[in-house]
């Protein structure tokens, strides 16, 4: 399930505004990478460009044997990329017309073509893992933010993707629910799932990540092991940012 991931020269513009200015990025199988940096520097856009929620303008994205020139990507390329990645949204984005179980099985039955029985069995496992074994029949509107985000993560887990993308998964949560969601992500990280996580939780990033990337102004400014970035950053911008948030 895991494979090498390579991003080369990724550029994204919104009109005149260059949001991603040539991002190069590689992830080894099982590597857990956290992206930090000031708001508006393209962290979320980078994640959203990797599965074409935002369409990048230039560059190449490679997942194992799948290599996509983003400028020329057609429908099939985009679907293929999306089917090998999974995405956890800041605002959970659970399917409002589906209960927790159906949110998890939807990708399995509709996209993967699994039978209902097989998908339901997988959903029960995942519901247990995310601590919601008894809430399979609950609709998103009836769940707390923390529960919704855990289902959102469960939906992504079910896809067993080469790369899991987390876009500020705790930023929209009330403080009381942050802990349970971080615990769940920590457990996924412990399973050596390849993941890219945009987060403002510095302590958490330091704990779970093999590597920290600091972004500013649409570029990767600095990257390295957590101890190096948090303890001994080389770039002034990184140090200034860490002072502000620390």
């Amino acid at each position, binding site marked *: 399930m895991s494979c090498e991931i390579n991003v080369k020269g990724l550029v994204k513009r919104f009109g005149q505004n260059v949001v991603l200015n040539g991002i190069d990025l590689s992830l080894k199988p099982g590597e857990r990478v956290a992206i930090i940096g000031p708001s508006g520097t393209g962290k979320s856009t980078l994640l959203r460009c990797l*599965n*074409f929620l935002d369409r990048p303008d230039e560059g190449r994205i490679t997942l194992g044997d799948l290599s996509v020139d983003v400028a020329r990507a057609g429908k099939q390329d985009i679907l293929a990329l999306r089917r090998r990645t999974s995405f956890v949204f800041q*605002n959970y984005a*659970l*399917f*409002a*017309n589906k209960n927790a179980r159906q949110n998890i099985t939807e990708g399995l039955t509709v996209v993967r073509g699994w039978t209902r029985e097989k998908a339901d069995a997988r959903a029960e496992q995942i519901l247990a893992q995310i601590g919601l074994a008894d809430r399979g029949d609950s*609709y998103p*509107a009836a769940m707390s933010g923390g529960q919704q985000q855990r289902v959102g993560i469960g939906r992504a887990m079910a896809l067993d993707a080469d790369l899991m993308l987390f876009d500020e998964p705790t930023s929209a949560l009330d403080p009381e629910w942050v802990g349970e969601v971080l615990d769940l992500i920590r457990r996924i990280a412990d399973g050596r799932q390849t993941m890219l996580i945009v987060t403002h939780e510095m302590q958490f990033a330091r704990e779970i990540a093999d590597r920290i990337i600091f972004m500013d102004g649409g570029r990767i400014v600095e990257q390295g092991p957590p101890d190096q970035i948090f303890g001994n950053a080389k770039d002034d911008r990184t140090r200034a940012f860490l002072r502000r948030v620390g």
Partner: protein
Amino acid sequence: MQGLNIAYMLDLIPVIAGYVPLTMFMAVVSMIAALVLAAILAIIRVMRIPVVDWIVAVFISFFRGTPLLVQLFLFYFGLPQIFSFLVEIDGVTAAILGLTLHFSAYMAESIRGAILGVDRSQWEAAESIGMTQIQLLRRIILPQAARTVAPTLMNYFIDIIKSTSLAFTLGVTEMMGAAQKEAAGSFLYVETFLVVAIFYWVIVEVLSVGQRWMERHLGKAVVR
């Protein structure tokens, strides 16, 4: 001022009642056809399918911008002049055709609005798990849009039922046509048209009660 001829009105009830099935047949067939067509039109507009999108925009504009009666006359009297095989288009068919196209234009705009009203994050979530556009519309977006648009569609159905009365201008003897004939014989216009008005009113009220019941029960599965 004289009193109403109640006995005449009571006698008229079974006569008009005999035409309720034809009125409802035209209304139900038109509603179903219009709904299917409107959903297709709305999806074309939302997806902005090139060229077709433009044709649909003109279609909607025309059928919303001209009176239903004019459209019915166009179909009934006009079409046979253009297409010779349609010489025998009967009033019921022309009425159903006109009602379908006319109301599909209105419904398409309502459905489009409901589709666009579904939160952006629902599209993105469906895309992120690798659904095709058709899958995400069918499984995620349309079910949510349907819930929003259902009351509006019910109003259009009520409108369609009342609009079937225009079929009498195409020589169809439905409720209104039957009333017209009765009144022409009895000269009791007030009584006759009062009876037919009450018939429409009762039908619509029965449906409204049904609608409220449905909304209460459908509303139970929680959304948002």
